């Protein structure tokens, strides 16, 4: 048999995995791979301007399409630049394969030029990682990496690939997954346990479904909708779960938690049964844990046994794939109507709706709602940065389909949104893609504008420009006597720094500054027509706050509602 190089084996495996897009950045020890990939037509390589941009783009691609995102970086600084992106994907369970070049295997451990121990650095933030020391192991490693990334609770897998392994040759041997003795992602749930949930639903007077990102990851949105509608149970979601259940359905309570709707928080606090699906009762959701849903029995469906009873005591755990479990549960339930419970909820909805001051000032909530109104009958993906912008995007856009919100939930990574939006647009070219951004966050990966311009990727960046690191400023306003330490990024009121319009133009992109409410629609219309990326720089009310808000450490019944 003929021998082929490590780089050729890797490419053969990438093709077998049907990889179509790779995001990355070169360097000395990855040239052998770059060189071979250069002539592979089936795989399009996107050269970002920073490795962090590459991994967030791969992540956005994965979230938008459901496929495994792939990125490549060189050793040393190239590899360490991936770290934030790996952690971002890890906390949100996003399937990624990150490939890093490594120094010659004979030099590993010598503090060689651009050598870092990537396997060591990324051990706690990957689902699994590999250092490939022998070209004979490479095919097997790549096969396992993709399998591990996409199955069970998905996550990022890193492959560290020394330069000599890329050029060494061996006979290609078909890899097999049988070697993974320690990895059996549980798939079907225990029928007895599922039956218990069905019984609990039957008995419950005030049940609530609390759905997380797993619904989207496992494609269980249809099953969820069926369950909720048939048993007449209201649904609240986490940030990651937005889009798992249509928010325009009367059963929807929107998002819960720190910046969730008042009615979602009141409903879960008053519930007698919580059906948690792929959500992990994180502190941003539960608030003060000992006062969380005091009278509720908890049923928890999750692929990951380590999520069960981690933060709250679970009464009915079911471990397995959410889609399969919900399918089975749906065969056990009977039709229900819960008038009294819905009466309570509609009181809360009436009394405490999501609201803001809808005057003639330019307010961020209005911008988000307008974007929704103008695009709701089209396929849209909303990526976000982090901060107030992310929360306004979560609250005021109405998500009705899965994979329409691309946002860093677990890590809350500023600078995530723009590269992720580029990746999402590449994965879903037919969708309109927005990045809802803050003026602080957008400066963290703005360099990727070059990629968007040169590759003609028409992503619309909506900067909610308040001149502040607004979310931190909000905390300072409320809890630190308005002492705005370290949070003024735009300079004094009236100064423009940077000038985002000129910044856009310097890349060859379109930039529009909007200062008046009446210009919002016109600017969005113009952005929708553009063939390349656009920055819409909305100069919003500087000290607008995100409400409702549960102060950290407080029970989620104790919401601040603001002035509106």
């Amino acid at each position, binding site marked *: 048999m003929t021998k082929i190089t490590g780089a050729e084996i890797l490419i053969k495996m990438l093709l077998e995995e049907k990889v179509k897009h790779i995001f990355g950045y070169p360097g000395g020890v990855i040239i052998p791979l770059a060189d071979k990939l250069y002539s592979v037509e089936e795989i399009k390589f996107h050269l970002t301007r920073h490795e962090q941009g590459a991994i967030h783009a791969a992540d956005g691609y994965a979230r938008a399409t459901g496929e495994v995102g792939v990125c490549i970086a060189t050793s040393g600084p190239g590899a360490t630049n991936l770290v934030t992106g790996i952690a971002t994907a890890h906390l949100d369970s996003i399937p990624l394969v990150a490939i890093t070049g490594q120094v010659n295997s004979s030099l590993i451990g010598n503090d060689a030029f651009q050598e870092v121990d990537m*396997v*060591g650095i990324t*051990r*706690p933030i990957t*689902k*699994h990682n590999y*250092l490939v020391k022998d070209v004979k192991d490479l095919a097997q490693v790549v096969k*396992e990496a993709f399998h*591990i990334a996409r199955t069970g609770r998905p996550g990022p897998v890193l492959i560290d690939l020394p330069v000599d392994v890329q050029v060494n040759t061996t006979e290609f041997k078909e890899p097999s997954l049988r070697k*993974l*003795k*320690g*990895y059996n992602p549980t798939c079907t749930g225990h029928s007895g346990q599922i039956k218990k949930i069905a019984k609990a639903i039957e008995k419950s007077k005030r049940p609530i479904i609390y759905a997380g990102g797993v619904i989207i990851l496992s494609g269980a949105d249809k099953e969820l909708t069926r369950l909720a509608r048939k048993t007449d149970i209201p649904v609240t979601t986490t940030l990651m779960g937005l889009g798992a259940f249509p928010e325009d359905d009367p059963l929807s309570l929107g998002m819960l938690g720190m910046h969730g709707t008042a009615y979602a928080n009141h409903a879960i606090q008053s519930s007698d049964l919580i059906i948690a699906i792929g959500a992990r009762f994180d502190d941003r959701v539960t608030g003060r844990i000992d006062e969380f849903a005091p009278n509720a029995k908890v049923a928890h469906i999750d692929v*990951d*046994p*380590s999520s069960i*009873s*981690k933060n709250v005591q679970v009464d009915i755990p079911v471990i397995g794939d959410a889609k399969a479990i919900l399918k089975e549960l749906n065969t056990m339930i009977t039709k229900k109507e819960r008038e009294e419970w819905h009466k309570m909820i509609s009181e809360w909805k009436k009394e405490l709706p999501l609201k803001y001051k809808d005057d003639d000032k330019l307010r961020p909530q209005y911008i988000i709602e307008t974007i929704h109104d103008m695009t709701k009958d089209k396929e849209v993906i909303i990526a976000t940065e982090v901060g107030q912008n992310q929360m306004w995007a979560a609250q005021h856009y109405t998500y009705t389909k899965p994979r329409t919100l691309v946002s860093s939930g677990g890590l809350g990574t500023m600078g995530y949104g723009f590269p992720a939006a580029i990746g999402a647009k590449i994965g879903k070219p037919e969708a309109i893609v927005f990045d809802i951004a803050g003026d602080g966050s957008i400066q963290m990966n703005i360099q990727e504008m070059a990629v968007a311009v040169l590759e003609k990727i028409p992503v619309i960046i909506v900067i909610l420009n308040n001149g502040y690191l607004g979310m931190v400023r909000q905390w300072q306003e409320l809890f630190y006597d308005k002492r705005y330490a370290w949070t003024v990024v735009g300079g004094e009121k009236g100064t423009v720094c940077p000038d985002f319009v000129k910044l856009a133009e310097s890349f060859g992109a379109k930039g529009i500054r909007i200062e008046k409410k009446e210009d919002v629609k016109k600017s969005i219309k113009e952005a929708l027509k553009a063939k390349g990326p656009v920055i819409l720089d909305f100069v919003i009310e500087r000290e607008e706050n995100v409400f409702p808000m549960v102060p950290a450490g407080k029970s989620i019944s104790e919401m601040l509602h603001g002035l509106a």
Partner: protein
Amino acid sequence: MSKFVLSVLVENKFGVLARVAGLFSARGFNITSLAVGETEDPDTSRMTIVVAADEKILEQVKKQLNKLIDVISVQDLTEGEHIGRELILIKVKAPDTKVREKIVKVVDTTGAEIVDVGKKSLTVEESGDDHVIKALVELVRPYGILEIVRTGKIALRSDSE
């Protein structure tokens, strides 16, 4: 915090030890002892880990251990019958023949063995469960212990009721 004994079957590969140990260190748990060796299958190793931990957090660690791709199975041997063994070497002060004879006599009453005789010291070897090891240490302590080295416990579940 109480002591727990975990038996962890893992792939016999580089890097596995660091992954396993990392789960304990990330939570600030001190591993009291850890013994690793190949099993009947050369592709797998068994780690016996003795750790002082908070029970609730250890529950989480066990689940996290199970999640590691290279971990094949995790057994908690803390409760229930298991056979636990450890080997210890103790170097005891023996400055003259008189003391030496005394130590030899004392050690003779146990199952331990003198495995090295130096000019000013004796080295005693013992293997057994926690009690046996502890008893020997106390027995020779009055003579002055120079050094102790222990393998860490290895353990298997007992099949007899």
